[in-house]
């Protein structure tokens, strides 16, 4: 047994080390964001909040923020709506070609984003559409959809069918049973899907880079500023805010995901993906 414990200890140490590797960039971020030196390197100079102040006063950045929030909100709502349809269809109904159709809808999860972005761009330019945040929303909805479906499928799959049937027996119509019984039960999954989609869209770079035209979004703004050493400390401050925001959103999403599983009485089997 002592050998087993030793082995467990070794693995534990390795896993903790691995976590450190995963978190290394995120841990460095606030260090540089609050560092008064203008060069991103060690040793650190001193404490300052100037970069956050500078960030607040930046008009382009504010425009990028507004755009990103608009895009993320629209894309997450659209992706979640599509996700509800797909998750409901795949968990509740059998129909020919289901595996193929579902596989195709989930494809953007593994397809390189450059392919999605480039092919969509070619079509949009081909039909003479003007690039704007609307075109980014269209692209983001597509890539957020599979993640939404993955989360929502878990929520719908663990749903007890007899609850709906009981509602039909008690005289509810299909729609009212869905609204009164199913929807409240999968609501945590829906919120979780909204939050994850929001986070993905907020952070997505490639599609925004190619489809936004002249409109900045947060990632494309960050990308454009990384070329200028003078701007880097401010970008670090922005990064710190974004990381904090993502973690908060994810924590809320995780909370609802777990609550959803607890509500349906299922067993928690894992994380988001």
């Amino acid at each position, binding site marked *: 047994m002592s050998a087993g414990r030793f082995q467990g200890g070794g693995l534990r140490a390795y896993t903790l080390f*691995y976590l450190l590797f995963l978190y290394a960039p995120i841990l460095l*971020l606030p260090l540089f964001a609050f560092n008064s030196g203008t060069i991103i390197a060690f040793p650190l100079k001193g404490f300052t909040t100037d970069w956050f102040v500078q960030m607040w006063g930046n008009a382009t950045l504010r425009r990028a923020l507004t755009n990103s929030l608009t895009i993320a909100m629209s894309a997450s709502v659209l992706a979640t709506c599509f996700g509800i349809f797909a998750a409901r269809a795949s968990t509740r109904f059998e129909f020919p070609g289901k595996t193929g159709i579902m596989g195709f809808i989930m494809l953007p999860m593994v397809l390189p984003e450059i392919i999605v972005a480039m092919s969509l761009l070619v079509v949009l330019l081909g039909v003479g559409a003007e690039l704007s945040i609307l075109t980014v929303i269209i692209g983001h909805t597509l890539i957020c959809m599979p993640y939404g479906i993955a989360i929502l499928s878990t929520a719908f799959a663990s749903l007890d069918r007899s609850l709906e049937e009981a509602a039909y027996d008690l005289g509810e119509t299909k729609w009212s049973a869905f609204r009164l019984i199913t929807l409240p039960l999968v609501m945590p999954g829906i919120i979780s899907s909204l939050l994850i989609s929001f986070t993905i869209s907020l952070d997505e770079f490639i599609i925004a880079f190619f489809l936004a035209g002249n409109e900045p979004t947060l990632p494309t703004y960050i990308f454009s500023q990384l070329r200028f050493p003078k701007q880097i400390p401010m970008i670090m401050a922005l990064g710190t805010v974004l990381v904090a925001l993502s973690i908060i959103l994810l924590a809320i999403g995780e909370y609802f995901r777990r609550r959803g599983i607890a509500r349906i009485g299922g067993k928690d089997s894992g994380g988001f993906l």
Partner: protein
Amino acid sequence: MAKRGMDAEARQGFTLIAPPFIYALAILAAPILTILSYSFLTDGYLEVVREFTLDNYRQVWTDPIVRTVMLRSLMVSALVTLVTVVLAFPVAYYVSFMVRPERKSMWLFLITIPFWTSYLIRVFLWKVILGYNGVINSSLTGLGIIDEPLTFILYNVNSIVLTLAHAYAPFAILPIFVALEKIDRSLLEAGRDLGENRLMTFWRVTLPLAMPGVIAAVLIVFIPTIGDYVTPELIGGGKIPMIANLIQVQMLALDNRPLGSALAVTAMLVVAVVSLLFLALNRRFLKVKQ
């Protein structure tokens, strides 16, 4: 009656799946078919000429630059996949076998958080960590361990591999974790009871049963990394392009959409062929009954 019931169910299923399916057809399938058809057309000045040609493919397959970049992309992706999956396996194993069940989701949450936080800034910070005056070099010189900054971690393929391995870590951990979770623990006890030691039990029972997860992890890391645009751009300083950068240059900077399309289609084909080959080589593991 039963048949009619089936039909009604199928119809309802189709009605429900229609909106997301049509969306995916319009926004994903139609554009991909468009670049597929573009790849057979001729590039004219400012427009695509509707003239069938195989020249784009001829050019893609004979150009030494394209070949170099394609091979580099494949090599980088393969390396990233190898590094990511090998490093991730013990983590998935630890969380599945050593962590108490009620704490597993917390561990998974901890593992996935970095993945969801600003990709660009994470990539940029690796440049800061690995750079000439970066965290690693300045600490090592500060401690007097090295006199000159290490250059093998700087703006080269190594740093691209490291950055991508970091970015795709959860993609590897989660599928392996799911496969490990499915393993019936009594099989391991049976192995031990039959006189196998820990290592042999792992080798002959755990690993083969975990292979579907490992295979999924390999594909799910390999396919997107080959199309990564940001990391070669930021870490490689634009000097070590991968296939995505080449596609972007052809499509936008040089405005040669047919050639760019042919590049994109070729890249997808290469990825598909490599993935299918990999699946074929490992098909015996996928037949394992769980």
